[in-house]
C-alpha cells in the first residue's frame, strides 16, 4: 500500500506542477464564466445600428402611435427604429413595388404594411430581406398589437386611464415540482445542471487522456520495467489512476471555490455595469445534484480511466493510440448527442434504458437527475450496473496492462490481446 501511495504522490505532484494544469485550472472557470456571461452581455449590449423602416398605413390611425411605441434605444441613446410614413401617390401596387426595390437596395431595412381593416382583424405585413430578426419582429408585433387592442378598448368606451392598467402583461413564473415540494426555477437550475453534465463529460475525457498519455510515456520512455522491479503492474496502474483522480478533485475543489466566490460577488459586479442584469435570478442547485455529480464523476472516471490505461499499455506512441481511443471516446460522445432527447422526455422508457447503460450512465443519469429526479431504484440500478462494469473493466484492463506494458513493437491484434489475457 505504501508503494501505491508513492506512485499516487508522484503522479499528483508531477501533474499539478505542469503549466497545463495551472492554466487549465485558472482558465476553466474563466471560460465557464465567459460561456455564461457573454450571452448575457450580448443580450444587454446590442450593437445594432439605426434602422429605417417604412410604414404604409392604410388605416391612417396607427403610424403615430407606432412611432411612439417603437422607442427602443440603442446603446448611444439614439432611437433604434426610424419610422417613415409612406403615402400612396398613384396606386398601392406601384408603391409596394417601389418599396420592395428600396428594401433590396438597402435604403430601407424593412417596411410595414398596415391594411385599412387592421382593427377588424386585417393582417399586417412585415417585409424585409432578413426575416429572422425575431427580436425586431417581436418588438414590432407587440407594439402593433397593443396599439390595436388599446384602440378597440377605447372603441368600447373604456376609460383611457384604465386601459394602461388593463394592458399590463402577465408575468409567468416557472416552478419545478420535485419529491420534496415545489421550488421556484427560472431555468437557471437546468442551465447549471447542463453545465455540470458538460463539466463531467469534459473532465472524464480530459483526465482519461492524461492517464493514456501517462501510460504511454512510461512505456515509451522505458521506465516501466524499472518501476515494476519494485511493485506489481496492477499497483502501478492503480496508483496512476488514483493519483490522477486526486488531481481531478484538486481541480474541482479550486473550481468550486471560484464558483462560490462568483455567486457571492458576481451579482454586485454585474449589476454595477449592467443594471438590467441585476434582476437575472441567480439559480440555486439542490445539494443532491452535487452529490450525484461527484458519485457519477468518480464512477465515470474509473470506468473510462481504466479503459484508457489498458489502451495506453497496448500502443507505442500517442498516434497509435488515437485509433484505439476512438471507440472509447465515442461511448462518451454518444450520450452528449442524446442529451437533447433525454431532456425533452426524461422519463420515457428509451431515456430510462439509455441512462441505465453503464457507459452512458454517468452523463445521462446525471442529466435525468437534474432535469426530473427519477425514482431512486432507477438511480441505484444505474449506479450498481456502473460499479459492476467498472470492476469488470479494471479486471480486463489489468490483465491487458500487465502484458502490454512490457511489449514493444507491433501493435497487437484483437486475437493476440485475448491470448494475453490467458497468460498466467
Amino acid at each position, binding site marked *: 500500500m*505504501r508503494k501505491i501511495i508513492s506512485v499516487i504522490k508522484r503522479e499528483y505532484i*508531477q501533474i499539478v506542477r505542469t503549466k497545463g494544469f495551472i492554466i487549465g485550472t485558472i482558465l476553466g472557470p474563466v471560460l465557464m464564466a465567459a460561456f455564461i456571461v457573454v450571452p448575457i452581455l450580448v443580450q444587454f449590449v446590442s450593437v445594432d445600428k439605426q434602422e429605417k423602416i417604412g410604414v404604409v398605413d392604410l388605416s391612417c390611425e396607427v403610424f403615430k402611435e407606432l412611432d411612439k411605441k417603437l422607442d427602443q434605444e440603442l446603446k448611444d441613446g439614439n432611437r433604434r427604429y426610424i419610422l417613415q410614413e409612406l403615402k400612396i401617390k398613384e396606386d398601392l401596387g406601384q408603391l409596394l413595388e417601389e418599396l420592395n426595390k428600396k428594401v433590396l437596395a438597402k435604403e430601407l431595412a424593412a417596411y410595414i404594411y398596415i391594411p385599412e381593416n387592421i382593427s377588424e382583424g386585417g393582417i399586417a405585413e412585415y417585409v424585409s430581406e432578413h426575416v429572422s430578426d425575431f427580436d425586431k419582429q417581436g418588438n414590432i408585433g407587440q407594439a402593433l398589437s397593443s396599439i390595436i387592442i388599446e384602440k378597440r378598448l377605447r372603441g368600447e368606451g373604456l376609460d383611457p386611464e384604465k386601459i394602461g392598467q388593463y394592458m399590463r402583461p402577465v408575468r409567468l413564473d416557472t416552478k419545478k415540482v420535485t419529491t420534496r415540494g415545489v421550488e421556484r426555477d427560472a431555468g437557471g437550475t437546468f442551465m447549471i445542471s447542463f453545465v455540470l453534465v458538460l463539466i463531467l463529460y469534459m473532465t472524464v475525457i480530459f483526465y482519461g487522456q492524461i492517464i493514456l498519455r501517462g501510460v504511454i510515456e512510461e512505456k515509451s*520512455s522505458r521506465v516501466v*520495467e*524499472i*518501476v515494476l522491479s519494485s*511493485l506489481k503492474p496492477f499497483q502501478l496502474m492503480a496508483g496512476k489512476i488514483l493519483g490522477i483522480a486526486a488531481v481531478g478533485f484538486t481541480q474541482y475543489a479550486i473550481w468550486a471555490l471560484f464558483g462560490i466566490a462568483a455567486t457571492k460577488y458576481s451579482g454586485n459586479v454585474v449589476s454595477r455595469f449592467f443594471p438590467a442584469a441585476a434582476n437575472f435570478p441567480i439559480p440555486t442547485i439542490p445539494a443532491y445534484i452535487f452529490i450525484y455529480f461527484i458519485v457519477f464523476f468518480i464512477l465515470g472516471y474509473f470506468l473510462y480511466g481504466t479503459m484508457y490505461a489498458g489502451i495506453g499499455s497496448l500502443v507505442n506512441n500517442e498516434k497509435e493510440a488515437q485509433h484505439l481511443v476512438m471507440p472509447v471516446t465515442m461511448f462518451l460522445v454518444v450520450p452528449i448527442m442524446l442529451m437533447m432527447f433525454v431532456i425533452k422526455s426524461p422519463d420515457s422508457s428509451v431515456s430510462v434504458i439509455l441512462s441505465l447503460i453503464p457507459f452512458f450512465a454517468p452523463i445521462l443519469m446525471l442529466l435525468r437527475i437534474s432535469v426530473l429526479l427519477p425514482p431512486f431504484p432507477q438511480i441505484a440500478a444505474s449506479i450498481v450496473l456502473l460499479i459492476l462494469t467498472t470492476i469488470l473493466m479494471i479486471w480486463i484492463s489489468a490483465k491487458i496492462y500487465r502484458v502490454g506494458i*512490457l511489449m514493444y513493437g507491433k501493435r497487437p491484434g484483437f486475437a493476440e490481446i485475448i491470448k494475453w489475457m490467458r*497468460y498466467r
Partner: protein
Amino acid sequence: MDALKIEKISKRFGDFYAVKNFSLKIPEGTIYSLLGPNGAGKTTTIRMVMNIIIPDEGSIQVLTEKMDDKMKSRVGYLPEDRGLYPKMRVGELLLFFAELKGIRGQEARNRIDHWLERFDLANWKFKKVEELSRGMQQKIQFIATMIHQPDLIILDEPFSGLDPVNTKLLKDIMLEMKNQGRTIIFSTHRMEQVEMISDNICLINKAEMVLEGKLSDIKQQYGKNTVILDYDGDASFIRTLPEVEKIDDYGKFMEIKMKERSDPQDLLNKSVGKIRINKFEVREPTLNAIFIDKVGESNAQDNIGH
C-alpha cells in the same frame, strides 16, 4: 546458500517457447553471467526471476524464499529496456525509486547524495532527467538499482552504451558489491568483460541451457587447444594447414583452434618467415570462441533436426 535457485521453469508465449525446462543455481557472493545470442530467453528468465512475468511451470527461489513483493526490496534490477521519467528532477526521481524499495526520508536522501557524488552527478541533482546525456541517465539507473543495498543484483546488459571510463566505474562497483557478499547476475554479449569478472557462466540458446558452470572449469574442459597469434602480414596460408581446425581472423590478431593431437609447435615452425609474429600463445579458447562454437553447434543440430 544459493542466492537464486531456478527449477525447471518454462514459459510459452502462444506456441513459442521463450524459456524451456530451465534450471539454475547461483551461489551467494558470486558474479554470474548469463550469456546467449539475441532472443535466447535471457530477458524472459530474468523477468520471471523478478516476478514480472509468471512462469508456466517450475519454481524460482530468490535468497531462499519465494519471490514476492517483500523480496523485491532485497533485489536490485536493471532491465535491458530501461529509461527514466523524462520530466522529473534527478533527485526526486531517485527518491521515488528509493521509496518504492521502502527507503524513505532522510536515509533515502543521504544515500542519493552519496551515490550522486560517487557517480560524479552531484551537480545534476536538481536538473530534469531529459537534460542529461544517455550515459548520465544510465548512471542514474544504476543508482536506482543499488540505492536499497540489495543482496541480489540483476543487471540486464549493464555495459551496453557505456564509455570506457564508466565501464570501468561500473566494473569496480560490481566487484565492490561482490566483496560485500552480494550476488550479481548479469547478462551480456561482451565476452571480454565476462572473462574478466565472472565466477560462473551460463550459456542459453533457443530457450535452453547449453553450457553452465565455473568459468575456469569450462575453460579447462576445452584444454589448451588454442593458439592466439598476434601478427603482421598475409596469414591466409594458415587456413590451409593440416593442424588447423578452425580460425577466427581479425586481420592482426588470430584465434586458431588446433586439431586434436596436433602440435602447436608445427604451426609456429610453418609460420616463421612468412609473417611477422609479435605474440604466439598456447592457451584455452577464449569465451568468445566457446560461445560461437556452442551456439553454432546447437544451431547446426537444430538444422539437422528439421
